[in-house]
């Protein structure tokens, strides 16, 4: 078994100082193995997005240690070890879809000849073949988010970070996108950290669900999703799926009452 992709020990994050001080995370211990699909779930204010940003070195921890791909998070970011997808697609309006996917490749100095081919491959992967010449505003929300995923995977990172990527999509699109992400995950073998506040989404997608509770944000439970690896419409009707949904829901409730009592 290879070294974990993410390893956090006693990780904590405090924003602000003095009166305005808020403790976003406390005592986070987390290990994510290579090829894992881990969801971080919890109510708003539980620090799940902050934890994702710590892994991506978009914010720095206040306490504890964090190792990403066997390195300091900063080194891991500088080595372009991860791709990230946000809730909003954050595509650049003045670039075509193709050029948006090529953006990281330009910055990472991929050879001129390789960039278009690779971007096209990625658009094929997210089933947007032929949309390269479109501009972002011509696409639906779901399609824009697919471009964002193609862009995040274009440089073949070992780790994919997703921050509520389908939070702004309608239920139908959302389910289609979940299927899409699972397919892409299966084809690329990338490890995924997926922030969500949807219980069914977390259960459907993940190999493991990390349940978090607020004030201060911490991990209150971890649930291994022992559903078969191949997931489809039938999975959503599998009794085990419902049991796991209930399990996560109860874990969330325990977390909530635990924090209000403290």
């Amino acid at each position: 078994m290879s070294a974990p992709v993410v390893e956090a020990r006693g990780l904590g994050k405090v924003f602000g100082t003095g009166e305005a001080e808020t403790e976003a995370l406390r005592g986070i211990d987390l290990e994510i193995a290579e090829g894992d699909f881990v969801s971080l779930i919890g109510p708003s204010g539980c620090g799940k997005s902050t934890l994702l940003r710590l892994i991506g070195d978009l914010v720095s921890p206040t306490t504890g240690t964090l190792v990403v791909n066997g390195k300091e998070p900063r080194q891991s970011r500088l080595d372009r070890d991860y791709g990230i997808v946000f809730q909003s697609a954050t595509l650049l309006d003045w670039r075509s879809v193709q050029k948006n996917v090529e953006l990281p490749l330009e910055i990472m100095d991929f050879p001129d000849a390789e960039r278009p081919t690779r971007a096209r491959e990625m658009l094929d992967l997210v089933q947007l073949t032929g949309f390269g010449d479109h501009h972002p505003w011509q696409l639906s929300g779901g399609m824009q988010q697919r471009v964002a995923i193609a862009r995040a995977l274009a440089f073949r990172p070992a780790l994919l970070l997703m921050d509520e990527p389908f939070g702004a999509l309608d239920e139908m699109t959302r389910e289609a996108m979940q299927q899409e992400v699972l397919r892409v995950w299966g084809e690329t073998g990338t490890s995924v950290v997926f922030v969500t506040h949807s219980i069914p989404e977390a259960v459907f997608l993940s190999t493991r669900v990390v349940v978090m509770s607020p004030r201060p944000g911490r991990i209150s439970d971890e649930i291994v999703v022992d559903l078969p690896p191949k997931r489809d419409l039938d999975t959503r009707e599998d009794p085990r799926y419902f049991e796991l949904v209930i399990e996560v829901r109860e874990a969330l409730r325990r977390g909530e009452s635990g924090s209000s009592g403290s």
Partner: protein
Amino acid sequence: MGGANRRVARAGISILAVIVVFVLLWEGYKLIWTAMGWENPVRPDNRTMPHTWDIFLALFQPAQRNGPPFILVELRAALMTLREAFVGFLIGGAVGFGLGVLFVRSTISERAFMPYVVASQTVPIIAIAPMVVVWGGRANLPQWLSVSLIAAYLTFFPVAINTLRGLRSPHPTSMELMRSYASTPSEVLWKLQVPAAMPYIFTALKVSAAASVIGAIVGELPAGLRGGLGRDLLQFSQQFTAAPEKLFAAVLIAGLAGIAFVGLITALEHRWIGANRRLAA
């Protein structure tokens, strides 16, 4: 391409409509005020308000006895003033853009210099112009360049402010995205911030184009520069009682010069938007 032609045609029609309405208002005012014997706020007589057609005809009369027609002389003057304005516009635009980039890169420099940038615009151009002319003369700059520097003084401010706003316009997550790629500050600048700032910068350039023409006209006066619009406007206002239509005609040409410059920038803006939104609509 058909779209571009339609746009030009539409612009032409609306300009024509504005002229017709203006002429009607002007002549209507004269007619009614004369008939009623009113004298306020402006006397309707031909000395104070020459007929629009007299102003128009003045354009084609010789500027001096047996000389070329007025319109040719003044268009040549307008060209000279526009050249000074354009050089000033380029200098001011470059300085403004540079300040915007400097300020977005360093909050300390913004805090240190921004108050002076703002304060610079509270000093009237009329007060600045003679100083620039004197200093330019001491430094052996050609006079037209001193005038351009005065135009640049009016140009840099809107460009600096709007560039800064535009460079700050990308959403924080876009900045995080660039950070996740471990991109250098100059990659963030050229691939994200500058393209995002372009609409802001074009707005500033249009304001600055008009301002640079004003700066050049005003700058020509203390510089004592002959052959430009500034000198002519001053001269015609002194001769107003003898030949009022000349001043109006010169003002008309000065206005056209400004409109032409702003129009040029607008055309560039449309090209830029067109190039980036080819597939829109």
